[in-house]
């Protein structure tokens, strides 16, 4: 079988191959928490903006170490490509050591996106758990940039402890807005914390949305997403208006290798964003 490189001698086509990483230069590295960081990237060749849809992910390749799937966390209208991740495995730990000017490989964007168009004229409730805030950020930025097209917009964010809160400065800016409600809670409070304590699902009843006309976007650990979904449905939100972002062991990014198979779907191609009824029955099957 001919390789991708042999199929075409045209540089543009080769560069657009979903299996071929494009080199990107790190413009900025920002430490968010003790183990979480954000990188801002620009293509090494050319100055074209990286086009993507909110909710999509890229495969990030640390040369000589390996490749990992990471959601895009930047504003779709922004000038740089932004990723936020936790240094937890070999690749992300190596990535955390990279500095401004270093180069990494990018494949993508891959996957489905948040239904920002479908959410127009509705109340929108974002629910993020832990490292689930970065994949929601592009959708929130997009909605805030067209704020007049949406009803009430609420962000519910739960983390482990106060020191695990991501995007602290931006959260403060969001909290200061009159057209966005932000509720934050932590599972474990430290001394001096005067904010909320309790799981993120307890915030849903505080959000005050119109359940008959609400669209929910949820990202976090699967158990958290399951209980959050139950709470929304209990409050009258249509299951078809609940969207979740799933995570599995994505490798190829285009539904070929099967690593991220989740029952009859591939997370990388059919997801990561799913409408709840699409995966409802799969979420409670631990055998798959």
């Amino acid at each position, binding site marked *: 079988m001919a390789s991708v490189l042999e199929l075409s001698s045209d540089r543009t086509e080769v560069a657009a191959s979903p299996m071929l990483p494009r080199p990107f230069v790190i413009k900025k590295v920002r430490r968010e928490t003790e*183990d979480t960081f954000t990188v801002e990237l620009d293509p090494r060749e050319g100055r074209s903006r990286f086009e993507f849809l909110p909710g999509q992910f890229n495969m990030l390749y640390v040369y000589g170490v390996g490749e990992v799937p990471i959601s895009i966390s930047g504003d779709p209208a922004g000038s740089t490509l932004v990723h936020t991740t*936790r240094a*937890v*495995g070999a690749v992300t730990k190596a990535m955390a050591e990279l500095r401004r000017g270093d180069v990494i490989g990018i494949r993508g964007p891959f996957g489905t996106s948040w239904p920002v168009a479908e959410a127009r004229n509705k109340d929108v409730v974002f629910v993020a*758990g*832990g*490292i689930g805030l970065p994949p929601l950020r592009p959708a929130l930025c997009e909605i805030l940039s067209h704020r007049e097209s949406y009803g009430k917009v609420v962000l519910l964010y*739960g*983390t*482990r402890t106060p020191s*695990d809160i991501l995007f602290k400065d931006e959260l403060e800016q969001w909290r200061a807005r009159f057209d966005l409600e932000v509720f934050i*809670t932590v*599972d*474990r*409070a430290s*001394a001096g*914390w*005067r*904010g*909320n*304590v*309790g*799981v993120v*699902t*307890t915030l849903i*009843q*505080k959000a005050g949305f119109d359940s008959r006309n609400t669209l929910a976007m949820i990202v*976090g*650990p699967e*158990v*958290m997403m399951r*209980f959050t979904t139950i709470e929304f449905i209990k409050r009258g939100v249509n299951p078809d208006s609940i969207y979740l972002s799933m995570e599995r062991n994505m490798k190829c990014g285009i539904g070929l290798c099967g690593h991220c198979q989740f029952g009859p779907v591939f997370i990388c191609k059919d997801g990561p964003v799913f409408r709840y009824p699409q995966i409802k029955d799969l979420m409670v099957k631990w055998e798959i």
Partner: protein
Amino acid sequence: METLERILAQHQFFKDLSPEYLTLVTGCASNVRFEQDQNIFRVGDEANQFYLIREGRIALQLFSPDRGHITVETLSEGDILGWSWLIPPYYYVFDAKVLDVTRAIALDGKCLRRKCEEDHNLGYELLKRFSSLLEHRLETTRLQLLDLYGVRS
């Protein structure tokens, strides 16, 4: 002016309670206000009240000599504070500290216990509602214990 009975009737906790029982419950209710940093009750206090929070925020805390006051949960508008009034020996097991100025309706537990003893149907109605509340709190506490956001590898 909103009457206590109407406020109670509109609250999710008392939803669909018969007018007759609502009147009985209202007879044990009063409006209260707590200032920031005030302790509503402390561990070991006799539990003679529970509260329906109308506005404000309250922290349920435990004191540990090495860690100080640890908040285990915060409650706010719409939440119910306190169920120790229902379960012998009727002593609070947490401290309740006011984070933001709080307005609430206090329900006299002793008064309600007496009325429940006199009318077991009322007692059953209240127990069903508190069982549901306890189930919800147990569920969220279990989720909290799972440490879902912890690092996996």
